[in-house]
């Protein structure tokens, strides 16, 4: 951005205001988690955390198998993420760069599948999972999510412009098989977009609730199912629930801050050409 002046202070001011707005709900849930739910009635809530967070967190671990849930969620979201990134890049590569009969029609079909309302698929899908003997086990939440239409769409959009045809032709001239071209040319070129797709998929999978609720056993839960259990009883102890959500958000937040640079770069690179 040479030639443009350094940002003025009001730019920082506006951005800071926006970020305060972004952070506030996180902070607020931490506040409730560190106090008791009584603070929710106060007209002017206290601004500093109280001392109850660890006590509330300990209650979370007493109430639900939180470690197991965390482990399950990492396995599920991790597997789903890796597989989605690989398979979507593969399909996206084919749609973007390879010529084959029915390409446009098939691609239109991929987009159309985005419009299938997921809520109603639950019963037929459950019947299928039960037939396969997967109900109650992690594959039931992993297998249906191994690849996603939005991912195929996203990778195709990126690769159309980001991967020059000359590179592919050169590799082909070199005698590379298609799979090698994919592995050595397309995959490396799609890294930025894949980083974003990875994060997107991970978050979707991490936050999925309805399907795991139906298909998994409650004592073998994912994090979201464990959080739901915290709302048991006729009354809801918000301190407990929000302590749980805070605990569940921390790992994500850590990963997010550590990988933030790549993720941001991924979005930036992936979106250049709609």
């Amino acid at each position, binding site marked *: 951005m040479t030639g443009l002046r350094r940002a003025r202070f009001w730019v920082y001011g506006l951005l800071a205001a926006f970020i305060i707005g972004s952070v506030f709900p996180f902070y607020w849930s931490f506040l409730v988690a560190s106090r008791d739910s009584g603070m929710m*009635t106060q007209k002017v809530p206290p601004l500093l955390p109280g001392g109850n967070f660890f006590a509330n967190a300990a209650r979370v671990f007493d109430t639900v198998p939180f470690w197991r849930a965390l482990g399950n969620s990492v396995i599920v979201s991790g597997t789903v993420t890796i597989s989605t990134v690989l398979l979507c890049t593969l399909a996206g590569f084919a749609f973007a760069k390879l010529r084959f009969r029915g390409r446009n029609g098939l691609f*239109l079909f991929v987009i159309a599948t985005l419009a299938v309302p997921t809520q109603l698929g639950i019963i037929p899908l*459950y*019947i299928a999972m039960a*037939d396969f003997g997967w109900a109650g086990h992690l594959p039931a939440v992993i297998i249906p999510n191994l690849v996603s239409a939005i991912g195929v769409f996203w990778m195709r959009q990126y690769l159309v412009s980001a991967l020059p045809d000359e590179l592919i032709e050169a590799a082909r001239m070199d005698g590379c098989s298609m799979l090698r071209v994919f592995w050595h040319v397309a995959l490396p070129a799609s890294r930025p977009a894949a980083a974003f797709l990875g994060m997107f998929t991970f978050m979707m999978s991490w936050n999925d609730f309805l399907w795991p609720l139906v298909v998994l056993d409650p004592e073998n839960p994912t994090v979201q199912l464990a959080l739901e259990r915290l709302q*048991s009883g006729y009354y809801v102890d918000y301190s407990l629930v929000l302590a749980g959500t805070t605990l569940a958000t921390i790992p994500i937040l850590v990963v997010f801050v550590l990988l933030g640079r790549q993720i941001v770069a991924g979005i930036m690179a992936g979106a250049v050409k709609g």
Partner: protein
Amino acid sequence: MRHQLSRVGTLAIAVLAASVAVTACGSSDGASGGSTGTSGGKVELTIGTFTEFGYEDLLTEYMRLHPNIKITQHKTGEGGPYHQNLFTKLAAGHGLEDVVAVEEGYISDVLARPNLFNDLTKIGPKDVTPDRWLPWKYEGGKAKNGALIGYGTDIGPEAMCYRSDLFKAAGLPTDPEKVAPLFATWQSYFAAGDQYVAHTHKAWFDSDSQTFNAMHNQLPIGFLNTDDSLAMETNPQIRANWDTVTAAGERGQSAKLTAFSPEWNNGFKTGAFATTVCPSWMLGVVKEQAGPKNSGKWAVTAAFPGGGGNWGGSYLAVPKQSQHPTEAAALAAWLTAPEQQIKAFQKTGNFPSQVKALTDPALLSTTDPYFGNAKTGEIFSEQAKKVERAQYKGPGDGKIKENAVSPALQAVEQGKSPQDGWQQAVDAAKKIIK
């Protein structure tokens, strides 16, 4: 465009064929996570519950008494998702636990499908007889064809909770014995409400729908007639209750707080209303939501307008899906015996539905310091005996309450006229039972 779509069509068929092929080679015996098996001579049973049933220690005890049985408990937090899961798996035909808990509000849906559940009089232990339970509770677990679908666990006998400090400030009596006459009939209850509102300009009860539900639960039949046609338009009592409650609401008696919403929870803390209908399980709610700061301010009395009433409670049922129905029924029978339900009561406060439990010293001696050392065990035992019969709840009754009547009452509180609100409720109810 048409060209592309026709290709899509061809492809769809091809994919379908492929997926069928995949399905064909992938399908196995159909065993799933929820169902049970036998391993090493041990019978494995599963039991599904929601919120807190207080069964953890009891299940351990049962396994000790029956070394050949291994039990896994599936706990879900909220009743809503739990029952949705229950119905999904009933529909799918797989995956349910051997013993499932069913809440009163959903039992009518279960009773309407006796073919999906085992008749406990046939497969249950022979020493379990109807006189174990309060008669209306036992009747509540029977399907129309006479099959016993559920063994009763707990009940929710109703009493009234009130804020003694707010009563005092409004010049009303505060002593439970002196308060009781105010709650003798619904007429006296709303009259006292008018007095309270005139004095304090604050609300008397929490919401129209909580109060309406309590009144409605006292009618012999619910929203549906025994032939399962809609009773709302044919039974003038339902309409009369509607008019009484909404009129009181319009006179300022309702705090307009939707039950169980965060706002309602806050209303307990700030004293936004002076009374609330109190099924036994509600004590825990009041305690938790009003918080330690308000300890001693809430009181409960063994009086309920128009006699007794019941709100809540559950049943244990054994679905046909179960591979060990006899063992499952034996477990359900054991858990719903008075001895066990008293232990569960001591753990969670779920009030037992068993006749013998109601006279048990352990139950009668229970007091609650939060409510000024009220003899809660005695109060609710007394209230439980006042319930005369189980209300007839046809299939869809619970849904009419949740999705037609309660929202319409909320709409009236939000400014709709009672007449329009009633019409909304009736229309929505018709759609539900369609």
